[in-house]
């Protein structure tokens, strides 16, 4: 049995009451589930003897510009042993978007989550050092949100004093 077919049954066995929405597009396996479960699911996937998703490659978000479930947080995790990449997805709401940080599970998520916070304004709860990644600290906007104009907002950056 291939690793791809194993993941979902194992997850369902561990979390029987959760609804896992599975999509397989162009060979990429994506599993969508409730945002409150991201840390336990991450821990399970990392520590399971067969799966061993030990590397977090990327954390990002998608802004769907809709009223409900505005953002989706996307995690790309990789199992070096099985040479397999998995995508996790969790929806969060527009009003006070927040999700539990996965830094305790994968250390490398630290900067990825900071970048996502910088670009989308999503708060990662219990993140050790949640600062802006690229933009200045006092910047008020989140540039990758869909309402932010492509040309930028004139006068949004204070120039350094002479």
């Amino acid at each position, binding site marked *: 049995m291939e690793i791809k077919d194993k993941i979902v049954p194992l997850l369902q066995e561990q979390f029987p009451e959760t609804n896992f929405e599975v999509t397989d597009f*162009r060979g990429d396996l994506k599993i969508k589930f409730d945002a409150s479960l991201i840390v336990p699911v991450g821990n399970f996937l990392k520590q399971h003897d067969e799966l061993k998703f*030990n590397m977090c490659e990327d954390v990002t978000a998608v802004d769907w510009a809709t009223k409900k479930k505005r953002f989706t947080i996307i995690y*790309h995790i990789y199992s*070096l042993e099985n040479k397999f990449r998995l995508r996790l997805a969790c929806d969060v709401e527009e009003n006070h978007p927040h999700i539990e940080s996965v830094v305790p599970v994968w250390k490398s998520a630290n900067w990825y989550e900071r970048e996502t916070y910088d670009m989308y304004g999503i708060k990662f709860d219990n993140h050790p050092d949640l600062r802006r990644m690229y*933009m200045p600290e006092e910047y008020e906007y989140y540039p990758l949100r869909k309402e932010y104009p492509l040309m930028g907002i004139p006068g949004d950056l204070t120039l350094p004093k002479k």
Partner: protein
Amino acid sequence: MEKLTKDDVHPSIVKALLDQETNITFEDALENEMILNMGPQHPATHGVLRVLLRLDGETIVAAVPDLGYLHRGYEKMAENMSFYEFIPHTDRLDYISPPANNTAFCLAVEKLYGIEAPVRAQYIRMIMTELARITSHLVAVGSLAMDVGALTVFLWCLREREKVLNSYDIICGARFTTSYTRIGGVAADMPDEAIVIIKDFIAQFEEKLDEAERLLNTNRIFVERLEGVGVISGEEAINMGLTGPNLRGSGIDHDLRRANPYMLYDQMDFKVPVYNEGDSLARYFVRADELRESCKIILQCLDKMPKGEIMLNSPKKVLPRKTEIYTKMEELIHDFMIVNFGVKPPVGDIYSAVENPKGELGFYIVSKGEGHPWKMKIRSPSFCNLQSLGGLIKGHMISDVVAIIGSLDPVMGEADK
């Protein structure tokens, strides 16, 4: 030089640098720990990387890298242009190895479209990618040597790189910003003249590389400045998300060309160099060995490369040739539609990653069935590799910082996107 005052460093960065008990002062450096600002215009930081160092004497207690000085908002721009229009921008990500980025991006879009380039185009792409790996590692090795004081090797490496850039010039008309690949193939066929140049280059390269290595590997100053400096264990390297030569320098045998073969890498015979020490010297050795492996791959590609088409024949998805646009109505219509509205992919999201010289370069593309991506995330290796910098330089001297940055080989164009 002007003295750094408290207002120059943002309070949040100061907070990240300090833990609670520490008493910090910006005035009296002899009595206390002090904060030193390195970059963003320091020549050894390979671009515009800024690192804030908290020092006890000359020893680094804590370090906070500060990114964003080259942030151009490529992900935002990508959402507002068609896939074709974004190809030139990929040149400016990792500007030491543009053809590798071009290939990575086109492979991602092709995965989304569900098409594949013809065999000859794939061979040409592989040759270009490996040439890019050679140029990138030459710059990495050369500038690492320069950072620790060996200027000769830097000049030698750049001389060799020049020869590769000359072959780029013939193949795609540009020495640096190549924009060579197209979705579904490559822009132009590889002329025989270029093949001769590449073969000549490889024939003499081995010897030149030996020469440079003799200067470095037996040089006590070079070895002692790198050996045991910036050590990261294999487990920690995985945990920090290191990829590419930096991961293989820590004893983890992971190369996407082997692990998840793309293009025709599964038919190639090459070794994946792995060193177990995990220090800066091991990372240098990995790069030096990869230079030789890349030459092997290029020679195999040149042998096996068949004649044939270089662009896929799929009129609704791939730009037609210029000669056909000028003479045929159908092609003109397709060209008009593709240029103005882009090619409409199916709804869905894909992630495609390749082994770039610096590590894993991935593109995550979300499509809503429009000619431009709804979202595009660039997973750049330099950004992820830099994350380990703070931990690596802890406990070392200031002079080791440049050696460690050089051995991690970040490119800020890619880290800042």
